[in-house]
């Protein structure tokens, strides 16, 4: 971009003090602007809707959703897979880019990690909602009980329980560790006593000492090295939930890696949308630059191509494998009840992102926002169609049924989106949304400080 003095910092000179002020001061200000309040008020009905929908299923049961005797999975499972996929990118941006020393991550890793945290927490709700008897959710944990029962370790539900639990707690620790030095900055800049006490307590007495930094770097880097296999395993387990079954269209060894790439795809698209909003909302144009969007767009383009190959592999193996049921399911993709949705999926995930080959599109935020939203829609369609297509068209012809969406399904689709936005708005109000110490380091490396 012309007129941008440094690739990753859009200012002639951005001193260390200026970076701290730009990130910390909006949070420490008493008012936060009308736009923030209006946005928060807009998300509140959706938060209530989410709580209402969960309350309804806890009291009435999953008969509220459109599931029937054949299509026994519906929106709950698709939403679960979609949300955990969104959560995937935060950890990947943080850890994989840290390990490969990609400095452009500094401005975006904080909110990407927060996104992971919220998305994984929301994802964790769906399997519980979907259990049918959610009050027995704790049976998934091995605990000494009078019935002498143990969890069924061969069950995909148990794998999910441990995957989500580990992922959520791990992400929280990783995120909090990265936040410690910035909490100290907040403590030192806070003007009110309450601010000093709260941020001070959260900073745990961090002093920016050279010894602290050394221990911090050792721990943070090791966590990053652990996060990459963890995040791949979590999504592989989600893929395995399907692949371990006997249903046509699910019995594919490509599922785990294909789920991991799909998650990276939708997660990066979500980070792009959030980055555009945060950059505009908090005036962070100097720190989140077109170069950042360019890099993320390239990752999305790569993921889109891998997805296209994965779909092609799915069709090819169904044909080459010679199994009649598999071939029928693939035929059903293109000609069955959900064929228009499948067409839309292919357009959103494979065709639309091809525009990212052009540098001008990668650096135009309007185009990028549009493509990212399309990718998120496409990836949700992919998740729902994985469920619907196979279950609607299994081995037994007498059991072929289509799925009809209920209002409750729409509530658990739209509601959590609002809940996610609500949590993000609250986070932006309370904590620094950009990793200040990493941007300071970046400013030094870029020669901008």
């Amino acid at each position, binding site marked *: 971009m012309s007129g941008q003095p440094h690739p990753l910092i859009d200012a002639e000179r951005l001193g260390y003090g200026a970076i701290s002020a730009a990130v910390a001061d909006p949070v420490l200000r008493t008012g936060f602007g009308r736009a923030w309040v209006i946005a928060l008020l807009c998300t509140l009905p959706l938060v209530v809707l989410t709580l209402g929908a969960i309350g309804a299923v806890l009291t009435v049961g999953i008969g509220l959703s459109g599931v029937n005797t054949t299509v026994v999975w519906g929106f709950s499972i698709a939403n679960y897979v979609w949300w955990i996929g969104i959560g995937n990118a935060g950890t990947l941006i943080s850890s994989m880019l840290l390990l490969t020393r990609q400095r452009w991550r500094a401005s975006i890793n904080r909110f990407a990690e927060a996104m992971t945290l919220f998305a994984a927490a929301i994802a964790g709700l769906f399997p519980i909602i979907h259990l049918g008897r959610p009050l027995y959710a704790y049976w998934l944990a091995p605990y000494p009980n009078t019935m002498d029962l143990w969890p069924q370790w061969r069950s995909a539900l148990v794998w999910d329980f441990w995957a989500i639990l*580990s992922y959520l707690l791990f992400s929280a*620790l990783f995120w909090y560790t990265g936040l410690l030095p910035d909490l100290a900055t907040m403590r*030192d800049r806070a003007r009110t006593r309450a601010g000093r006490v709260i941020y001070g307590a959260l900073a745990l007495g*961090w*002093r920016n000492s050279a010894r602290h930094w050394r221990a911090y770097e050792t721990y943070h880097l090791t966590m990053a090295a652990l996060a990459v296999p963890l995040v791949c395993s979590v999504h592989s*387990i989600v893929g395995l939930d399907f692949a371990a079954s006997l249903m046509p269209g699910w019995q594919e060894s490509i599922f785990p890696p294909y789920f991991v790439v799909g998650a990276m795809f939708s997660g990066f698209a979500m980070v792009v949308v959030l980055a555009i909003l945060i950059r505009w909302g908090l005036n962070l144009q100097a720190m989140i630059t077109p170069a950042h969007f360019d890099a993320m767009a390239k990752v999305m383009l790569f993921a889109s191509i891998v997805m296209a190959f994965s779909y092609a592999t799915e069709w090819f193996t169904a044909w080459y494998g010679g199994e009649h049921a598999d071939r029928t399911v693939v035929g059903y993709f293109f000609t069955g009840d959900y064929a228009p949705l499948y067409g839309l999926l292919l357009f959103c995930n494979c065709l639309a992102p091809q525009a990212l080959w052009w540098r001008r599109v990668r650096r135009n935020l309007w185009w990028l926002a549009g493509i990212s939203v399309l990718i998120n829609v496409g990836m949700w369609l992919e998740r729902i169609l994985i469920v619907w297509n196979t279950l609607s068209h299994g081995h037994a012809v007498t059991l072929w049924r289509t799925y009809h969406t209920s209002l409750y399904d729409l509530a658990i689709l739209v509601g959590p989106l609002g809940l996610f936005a609500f949590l993000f708005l609250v986070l932006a109000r309370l904590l620094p949304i950009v990793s200040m110490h990493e941007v300071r380091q970046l400013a030094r490396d870029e020669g901008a400080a």
Partner: protein
Amino acid sequence: MTTPLLAAFDTPDALVTALRRARADGHRAVDAFTPFPLEELAEAFDPAPRWIRPAMALAGFGAAAAMYALQWWSAVHDYPLNSGGRPLHSWQVFVLVPFEVGVLAAAIAGFTIFLVTCGLPRLHHPLFVMPQFERASQDRFLLLVAPKGDPEPLRRLLEEAGAGLVAETHP
């Protein structure tokens, strides 16, 4: 007994230069406080954090082994259940949960040792009352040096190296 001096610099390079000169003159560098980690300081202050990674490895592998043992014992001995003709000891899927649990245990152990290594949590520290100490988390680079004998030469050295403020600490 002389008290250490705390000097504030505007740039990381000034701090590193001052540190080298103070060391060359025989003063003992105690610590440095910077708004971001400086590679130049990585080897300057001992001891290096030695226990974080071994503790993580130990906790990770230990928890994973314990989890595998629990699965094996419960599925093969305490509650054998023939589920669709699958073997009681289904090791292929029994490695999934131990992996997740192992990574989580490593993370928690690492965090604990990280805090212990740093002497945290500690809500107050005598240095917090020093003038400009709060700038170490924002835009200043502070160096804490214990003088060899009389503090005056060290004070002069630090000021010549570009320190904006040199203060005596009273721990």
